[in-house]
């Protein structure tokens, strides 16, 4: 082993600690994300206008915007969006209630879990659309069967997320609660709920995403209003601009409702921000 030479220890070269960190440049990079969609839209618009492409089945952006404007002016757009939103809202509420209750039960005790989980996992394996004929027989072709389908779709990710979140609570944190003599509702309220919340919000978000997916399926099965109806109607009457308009509205509404969910829960998860900031 080489003996450590003391002579080698010297004052470190003066580090330039005084220099200010470089000012962070304005980040243009996020704009890159717009290049492809906007570029494609502009190219397509140009191609159709110059007559290179026909644009009958794939209408150019200007025609889609005009269709959207027409639908909006007539009040139709709002009418259809409202119908769809109401269905998603009702189905989401029911699905979250059921998924949360079942997840909490299964998470609360091994006995409940052994009783519930195999059946729920089995039901989950069924593609939810397969329920459609049965729901129509049971609940008719109107709102009830649609909301039921959405609720089923929403409930599984919420159930799984709730159960997983409860099972992943650190036992060491629960012990902290016990040391401070918490038990029962106090332990649940002061330790378990806050510990579960971040996972639960993610479960809600994936549930909401599935809710939007299933509302389309529900509206395909015979609706006289709703964005899904606009899709079917656009297909049957050969109006591609209407189909793309409806798709665009789905995208916007899906994003907005997700953002609302995130904004509503953000104050409860403020402590998590620290990690991303530092």
């Amino acid at each position, binding site marked *: 082993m080489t003996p450590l030479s003391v002579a080698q220890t010297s004052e470190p070269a003066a580090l330039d600690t005084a220099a200010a960190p470089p000012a962070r440049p304005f980040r243009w990079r996020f704009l890159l994300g717009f290049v492809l969609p906007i570029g494609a839209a502009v190219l397509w618009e140009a191609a159709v206008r110059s007559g290179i492409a026909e644009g009958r089945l794939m209408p150019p952006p200007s025609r889609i915007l005009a269709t959207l404007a027409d639908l909006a002016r007539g009040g139709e757009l709002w009418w259809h969006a409202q119908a769809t939103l109401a269905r998603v809202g009702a189905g989401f509420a029911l699905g979250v209630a059921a998924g949360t209750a079942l997840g909490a039960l299964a998470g609360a005790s091994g006995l409940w879990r052994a009783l519930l989980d195999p059946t729920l996992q089995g039901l989950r394996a069924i593609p939810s659309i397969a329920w459609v004929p049965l729901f129509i027989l049971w609940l008719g072709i109107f709102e009830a069967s649609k909301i039921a389908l959405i609720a089923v779709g929403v409930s599984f990710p919420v159930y799984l997320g709730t159960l997983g979140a409860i099972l992943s609570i650190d036992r060491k944190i629960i*012990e902290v609660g016990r*040391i401070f*003599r918490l038990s029962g509702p106090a332990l649940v309220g*002061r*330790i378990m709920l806050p510990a579960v919340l971040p996972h639960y919000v993610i479960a809600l978000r994936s549930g909401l995403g599935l809710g939007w997916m299933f509302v389309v399926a529900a509206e395909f099965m015979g609706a006289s209003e709703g964005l899904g109806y606009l899709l079917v109607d656009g297909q049957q009457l050969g109006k591609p601009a209407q189909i793309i308009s409806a798709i665009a509205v789905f995208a916007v509404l899906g994003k907005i409702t997700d953002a609302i969910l995130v904004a509503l829960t953000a104050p409860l998860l403020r*402590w998590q921000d*620290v*990690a991303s900031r*530092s």
Partner: protein
Amino acid sequence: MLALNAVSKRYPNGTRALADISLAVNAGEILAIVGGSGCGKSTLLRLAAGLEAPTAGHVQVDGEPIAAPHPAVGLVFQEPRLLPWLTVAGNVGFGLAALAPQDRAAKVDAALTRVGLADYAGRWPRELSGGQAQRVALARALVANPRVLLLDEPFSALDAFTRVDLQDHLLDLWADTRPTLVLVTHDIEEALVLADRVMVMRAHPGRIAGVLTLDTPRPRDRQSATFDRAKRQLLADLGRAGAYRSGEEAFPAAAI
């Protein structure tokens, strides 16, 4: 006074973690517990904290039986175990929910001042260093003025400098209210710097192998000849208790 009377602990899987332990820790005394892994020293602490119940015998604090966590007994874990969704102040005041907000705030502030983190009240646990987080955990345990404070390898996850710093700090804190301290540690120097008595345990099943009494007044000089003698004595005791395999003179590097 913390007393264990003929305490045994056997886990459902048949492991005998503790066999017939009797022990009395005087009020205001600092007792360190050392021993090899599996000697039941952490189990002993968990029994004293009321987190687990003994299979036989009983645990008492000032004559009161401890069957469940007790307000007179505080516990600091190896990890800070701060609740990440509460600020530093929220964590320290966690056990004071029954107090009026202004009383709680005053106590929390006093406790944070004592551990030197008064300016950190509004921070989140994720923003703290390991040493700071463990000081918050100390404040959380001390804020209720426990008569007995149990520490389960509280500084073992910290770097050497922070550890020495916190050992000195713990002595200062102890000097304020003089609670009974029971400290489980792997660190022989830590035991010798802090404790009035060092209890050596042996494993399979967990028993008391011996108790070393230290008369040198604190603060103790880690470089002194007395300290060195005590260290040799304790290492020999630990060797006899089977905490590590030793030759006649050759201590394993890790133990020194």
